[in-house]
């Protein structure tokens, strides 16, 4: 599956421009990249940008593959999205979390034989108003992510209440031209209402808290030139389960966008404590193709 996706990404990226027209008319890198939940954004946070490069008379989309390798876990995400006229974004992401070390904790503590957690995320994002480059007040979008666990045994055992849930978010993004050192600065803020534990991979709701809570998420990046963007992201998280403390996430990223067809993102991610395993940090890599 991963190999097929990687191949199709490469084919997309190498299609001669004579055959395939440009993926869209929006300016380079203004589609962001694909976040781990499939919505356009940074790596960890959805931004107000819609995926790919479709402008108001066009449609387009993306395919992406990403992997985060932290101390005791590895997360693989395959995602696809469609963008209709830079107004509506539909996305789907399949997350696969390899439990590595946690396998033993689950076996000894709960008698569970489980070596991975899988989740599907279906996303909808609507651009409400504004343009990230041209509007003085930036671009604003609202979105929803319906998440469905494919393996609920573990989440159930550690106290999660539900195997599916929906996050709702409001996001604002703006590029400030010729900012520090005359470089363009991208700023994003997102507020998310959620019940998800570790983004949903550990289920929804818990014994400590079972209701929706508002979480603040933010990101900022500097365009070194039109092909390179470097920045940071932060994502506040709920802490619903007494089984293990849940930490906020952050990352430092570099994205390379050689042209509209392809983007490569590398990041250092810090996911904090996850299911009793402390201080999970590591490398994140993502490949995205746009059509």
């Amino acid at each position: 599956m991963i190999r097929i996706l990687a191949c199709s990404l490469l084919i997309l990226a190498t299609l001669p421009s004579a055959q395939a027209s440009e993926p869209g008319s929006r300016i380079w890198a203004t589609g962001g990249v694909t976040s781990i939940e499939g919505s356009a954004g940074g790596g960890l946070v959805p931004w107000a940008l819609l995926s790919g490069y479709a402008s108001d008379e066009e449609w387009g989309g993306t395919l992406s593959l990403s992997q985060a390798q932290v101390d005791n876990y590895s997360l693989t995400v395959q995602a696809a999205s469609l963008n209709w006229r830079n107004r509506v974004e539909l996305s789907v992401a399949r997350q696969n979390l390899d439990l590595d070390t946690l396998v033993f904790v689950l076996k000894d503590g709960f008698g569970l034989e489980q070596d991975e957690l899988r989740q599907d995320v279906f996303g909808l994002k609507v651009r409400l108003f504004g343009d990230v480059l041209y509007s003085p007040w930036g671009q604003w979008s609202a979105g929803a992510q319906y998440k469905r666990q494919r393996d609920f045994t573990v989440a159930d055992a550690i106290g999660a209440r539900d195997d599916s849930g929906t996050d709702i978010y409001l996001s604002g993004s703006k590029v400030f031209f010729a900012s520090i050192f005359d470089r363009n600065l991208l700023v994003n803020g997102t507020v998310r209402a959620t019940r998800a534990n570790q983004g949903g991979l550990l289920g929804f709701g818990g014994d400590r808290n079972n209701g929706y809570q508002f979480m603040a998420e933010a990101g900022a990046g500097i365009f070194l030139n039109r092909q390179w963007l470097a920045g940071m992201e932060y994502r506040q998280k709920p802490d619903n389960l007494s089984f293990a403390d849940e930490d906020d996430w952050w990352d430092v990223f570099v994205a390379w966008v050689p042209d509209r067809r392809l983007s490569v993102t590398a990041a250092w991610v810090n996911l904090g404590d996850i299911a009793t395993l402390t201080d999970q940090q590591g490398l994140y890599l993502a490949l995205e193709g746009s059509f």
Partner: protein
Amino acid sequence: MRRVIRPHTVVMIFIFVMTGLMTGCQTSTTSQSPDLYDQLGQRSGIAVIVEDLLFLIVDDGRINQSFRGVNVEQFHRLLTDQLCELSGGPCHYTGRSMRELHADMAITDTQFNALTENLILAMEQNRVPTGAQNRLLRKLIPLYPDIRNL
């Protein structure tokens, strides 16, 4: 509550402070920009950029129809003057206002993006430094609502 100050909180504060600084800085850095005009190669340099821009427009199916029947020589002179003036040069744009010019053209975002893209490419062809490109774009962005007739 249980939560004390953690590294994540520090990162978040850092992002906000940096954002504040950067956005605050931009007014001070760009207002003292006497050399943008020079970085664009003065009026003669700008004239070459505009000429390259016109070649790109002619080749661009998204927007070349909108330029049909335009007096190319006059368009070239007016746009060169306009960019020269915007970049702080000793020129004076004598054409009609942007809103008046585009009032009946129903310019779409796609077309606006196409023109922005071509301008960036024209500046790249003429080796205008990234910082100078960004500063010129910053001065052009306020024209967006007039051109889109919003």
